[in-house]
């Protein structure tokens, strides 16, 4: 596999310069503020995630990082360079997997990769060689001569990932890489991304799936309404903002609110959702036993591990995927 990045670092020896440095980053569209002053750093080799619901400002942030959207305020540096003045140089070192498919429907799978390599000034022979390797990496060698159109959503996404690696990027940007894919396609994709990560490629991705963030990200920020609500590793965020376990109680339709009182005082806190009551506790089974003993008659009850979804719910009062 050729997606082996060479991390160029500058400055004093021993000090690792972040690949991305953002300070008070703002993006405005007219009167609307999509990104409202966020700070973050991404280190070489890291898998960094933006987790948040639709409209949180993730894609706007990604487009600014990708140097295809000018910043409205604050500071943004990639590889120590300013996108406003060095966009071309920065983009030369980026791989971009956009949220919406932008494969060239007039070309074959292989041609899509070759012409993309040409945009990066690769020689024809080199572009062709890398295209072959990358199609093998995403397990689509047999579709090299196929047009893009008949491919499934998951396959198209894999072609897009292969295309984004043609310039052997130092930094790979993935905007909602698995949104709209079926579970099997998502797992194939995660596996490939995980391999890239192991090869040392720095990944920055956005997602509104907490399982994706947990699987892929070393560190993430939770975004809501253009701001960063929390930052840390998935594990640390769960430890900080949720309990070890969650007891989910499902009462008959419309009766969740009137049964809410059973949850009060049971654990650290609870959340009343339209379809269930969540109780945050350290021992779920014990909590369930107490609820039943108190006379509650839930239709179903489930004890599970806390997830990033719970973190998000706690921070914003809303679920990630509505």
């Amino acid at each position, binding site marked *: 596999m050729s997606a082996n990045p060479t991390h160029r670092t500058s400055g004093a020896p021993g000090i690792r310069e972040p690949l991305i440095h953002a300070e008070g980053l703002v993006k405005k569209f007219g009167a609307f503020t999509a990104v409202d002053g966020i700070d973050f750093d991404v280190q070489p080799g890291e898998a960094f995630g933006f987790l948040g619901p639709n409209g949180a400002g993730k894609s706007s942030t990604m487009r600014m990082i990708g140097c295809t959207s000018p910043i409205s305020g604050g500071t943004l540096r990639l590889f120590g360079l300013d996108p406003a003045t060095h966009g*071309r140089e920065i983009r030369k070192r980026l791989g971009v997997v956009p949220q919406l498919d932008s494969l*060239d429907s007039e070309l074959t799978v292989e041609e899509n990769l070759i012409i993309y390599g040409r945009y990066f000034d690769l020689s024809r022979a080199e572009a062709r060689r890398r295209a072959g390797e990358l199609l093998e990496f995403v397990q689509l060698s047999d579709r090299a001569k196929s047009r893009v159109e008949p491919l499934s959503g998951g396959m198209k996404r894999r072609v897009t990932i292969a295309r984004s690696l043609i310039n052997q990027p130092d930094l790979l940007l993935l905007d909602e890489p698995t949104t709209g894919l079926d579970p099997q396609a998502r797992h194939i994709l995660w596996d490939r991304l995980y391999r890239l990560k192991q090869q040392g490629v720095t990944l920055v991705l956005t997602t509104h799936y907490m399982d994706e963030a947990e699987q892929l990200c070393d560190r993430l920020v939770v975004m809501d309404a253009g701001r960063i609500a929390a930052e840390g590793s998935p594990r640390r965020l769960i430890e900080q903002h949720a309990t070890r376990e969650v007891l989910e109680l499902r009462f008959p339709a419309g009766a969740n609110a009137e049964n809410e009182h059973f949850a009060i005082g049971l654990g650290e806190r609870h959340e009343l959702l339209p379809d269930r009551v969540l109780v945050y506790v350290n021992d779920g089974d014990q909590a369930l036993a107490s609820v039943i003993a108190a006379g509650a008659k839930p239709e179903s009850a489930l004890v599970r591990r806390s997830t990033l979804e719970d973190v998000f719910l706690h921070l914003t009062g809303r679920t990630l995927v509505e």
Partner: protein
Amino acid sequence: MSTMPLLRIVPPVVRAARRPQRMLERQMMCYRNTWPILLSGFFEPLFYLLSIRVGIGKLVGDVTVGNHVLTYAEFVAPAMMASSAMNGAVYDSTMNVFHKLKYARTYDAVLATPMGIGDVALGEIGWALVRGLLYATAFLMTMAVLGLTSSWWVLISLPVCVLIGFAFAAVGMASTTYMRAWTDFEFVPTVTMPLFLFSATFYPVSSYGSWAWVVQLSPLYHGVALIRAANAGTASWGIVGHVVFLLTMAFAGLWVVSRRLQFLLLK
């Protein structure tokens, strides 16, 4: 470079273009798969010229321009050539560009690489020129076979067709950036049809009498005049005016294209 006065008419993002030829390369790749479409460019002029020579020409008789006497087919052929250059450029720069801009997100993908707005604008307009040159060559060969060429000067009509293509492709692409939906393209023939009919294409500009100045506002008129001059092998100072008119149109279009693409794609 940027201080050279001649280059100031080129928008800054276009001056910053480094690899517009990659967009041409992309087009060639596309046509590698669908090259028979290009053949259509040979048939269109053949049908036009045949119908005029065989049919209308016989009814109309000869046309006198200045002190030249031309058969009607000889008079109309250069106008058909100019119109065909216009139509090809308009087609490429409207429908095709709109699809890539709005639906295929081709340019978004391109702009995520070291390519810039100038590369996209120049590359896409450049393709309209390459295709225009191919079609004009086919047209000229057809004219020669049918005996409608008058001198070797007619070869100058090839660069003239490229100039016509440049002007119409730039303005066509500029208009496309304002289109919201496919239905908006119904306005395109509303503009190109009258140009085709009233640019001294089928009768000399003198026939318009005191309205001749309106005809002279049509960019196609200037293209037709240039190709007629080339075919007849006659030079005059008027040629400079025609060239300046078309160049002005081309660079104005390029300005709008580069601004609008920046607004639409890099927001």
